[in-house]
């Protein structure tokens, strides 16, 4: 995701548009990555909360537990089909992970006719994977009254504005488009592209956090509060669902309409619905891969523009799987970066995630009674955002440390829960 945002920013730094073929290959590559990314998040992190139960212990509530419940054959099918997306990634970018094809104004890895046909076959696998995923979601969540009460209830609900990317027909798109903003009622507040983001988004530094808190500049900073009048906003799959007028592929559109009918309209503020929209987008990305790979012109050898002198500044914006991703570079006359600003999805979602955690804590901790299950009920509140802390800490045993301190009304610590051992 960062790779693509970065090369789009590099395009802008050189003031060059990629060739039509390069743009198609980039979009193909990007949608294949969506398939792989959404699959991992849904099956490893999202579905276990439902399949294994929201208060199941971490020993059960994971992909292994999910496999035990739904069957090893399903698990095997998911991982095998997902590998088809990885294969497309390799065919379009030169490597199965860590691609090596991006160039300002182009793409260095051309696609041969044989590779195009191979990608088409892989695309069918991705569509099968998406059908299976929507089916699993339907059986496990939508047909379970208890879980649907959780999905549509008020505990996991954060009322914010939304930003997402749409194409010229106002449909959800990922690689390129216009960023559209809607308010808590779904009314459009504005649209921006590239460097115009500075007119719409401001970042506030908070004394208690390393992370800045973005908000809608024109509404002004109103604090970390949700509800009508708030200036914070959410990004990601649910934001795209709320902002766009649907999807430009048939099976994804069908799934979109089903969700729309279930909620009786939009915007939908129920955060667990992020998982539902993620499953719909998995289908959309798979169908988009097939659509692009069906176009024989992607084998055209013209994949690179000539570069001129850098213009000195560029912004690249993509719709990352977990939300709007902005790369903004300033460079010297040789194109070397002298200043950079990145606003990533987890930053955009800082406000909503904090509110989600607070709401879950206030809902589940009653009369001073807390237990280990609360750790997960709080995790459920922020997991839909698929927040991405740096993966490079390499701290064994590899857990995401969560600590919950219960403070009484005198400010005294009553109890502390954590999911890690102190060394």
């Amino acid at each position, binding site marked *: 995701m960062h790779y693509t945002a970065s090369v789009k920013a590099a395009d802008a730094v050189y003031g060059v548009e990629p060739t039509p073929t390069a743009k198609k290959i980039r979009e193909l590559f990007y949608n294949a990555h969506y398939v792989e990314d959404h699959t991992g998040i849904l099956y490893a992190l999202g579905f276990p909360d439902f399949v294994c139960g929201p208060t199941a212990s*971490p020993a059960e509530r994971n992909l292994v537990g999910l496999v035990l419940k739904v069957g090893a054959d399903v698990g095997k099918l998911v991982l095998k089909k997902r590998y088809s997306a990885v294969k497309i990634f390799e065919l379009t970018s030169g490597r199965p992970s860590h691609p090596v094809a991006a160039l300002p104004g182009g793409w260095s890895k051309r696609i041969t006719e044989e590779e195009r046909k191979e990608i088409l076959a892989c695309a069918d696998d991705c569509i099968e994977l998406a059908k299976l995923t929507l089916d699993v979601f339907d059986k496990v969540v939508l047909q379970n009254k208890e879980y649907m009460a959780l999905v549509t209830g008020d505990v996991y609900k954060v009322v914010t504005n939304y930003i997402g990317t749409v194409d010229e027909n106002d449909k959800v798109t990922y690689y390129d488009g216009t960023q559209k903003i809607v308010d808590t009622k779904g009314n459009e507040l504005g649209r921006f592209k590239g460097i115009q983001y500075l007119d719409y988004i401001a970042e506030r530094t908070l004394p208690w956090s390393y992370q800045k808190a973005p908000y809608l500049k024109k509404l002004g900073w109103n604090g970390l509060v949700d509800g009508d009048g708030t200036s914070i906003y959410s990004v990601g799959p649910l934001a795209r669902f709320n902002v766009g007028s649907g999807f430009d592929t048939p099976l994804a559109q069908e799934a979109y309409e089903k969700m729309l009918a279930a909620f009786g309209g939009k915007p939908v503020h129920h955060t667990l619905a992020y998982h539902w929209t993620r499953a719909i987008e998995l289908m959309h990305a798979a169908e988009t891969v097939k659509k692009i790979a069906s176009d024989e012109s992607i084998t055209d050898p013209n994949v690179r523009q000539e570069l001129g002198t850098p213009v000195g500044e560029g912004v690249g914006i993509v719709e990352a799987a977990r939300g709007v991703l902005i790369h903004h570079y300033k460079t010297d006359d040789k194109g070397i970066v002298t200043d950079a600003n990145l606003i990533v999805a987890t930053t955009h979602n800082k406000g909503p995630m904090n509110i989600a955690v607070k709401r879950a804590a206030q809902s589940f901790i009653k009369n001073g009674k807390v237990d280990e299950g609360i750790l997960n009920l709080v995790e459920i509140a922020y997991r839909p955002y698929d*927040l991405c802390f740096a*993966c*490079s800490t390499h701290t064994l*045993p590899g*857990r995401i440390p969560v600590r919950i301190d219960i403070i009484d009304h005198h400010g005294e610590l009553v109890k502390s829960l954590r999911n890690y051992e102190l060394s």
Partner: protein
Amino acid sequence: MRSVIIGIGNPNFKDDGVGLKIVEYFEGVVDTVTLLNIGFNLIDSLLGYDKAVIVDGVKTGKEPGSIIEFNAEFWGDVYASGTHNFSIFEIIRIGYSVFPEEMPKEIKIIGVEVEDVETLSRQCSPSVEDAIPKAVSKIKEYLGIN
């Protein structure tokens, strides 16, 4: 017997690249894979092999340059509680659950205790650099490579 050595890390962040440097010693000798980060791609890299070694920089509080070995007994007891990424152990457990026949019969994880994984540099800290030949020897011994 088919063996693979998988190095994990980012070569641009000083000691974080130690796993990749160790893997370089085995290129052309056995199959090698380098991963900048891990997810299901780790399972992709393991399937079809009899024996696998995973090498990574780790932070456990020991002296920088210490070599720590992990095996099935260790990861069998570890569960991830994740938001976005998975631990090596979690991914391996998933691999064994879903592909019991295709996963390696033996997997060893060699961790090299890191000192600095934040400075932008392709050169490891001296203590970590010194650990590289020791880790290489351990892997050679484990895989029976002369």
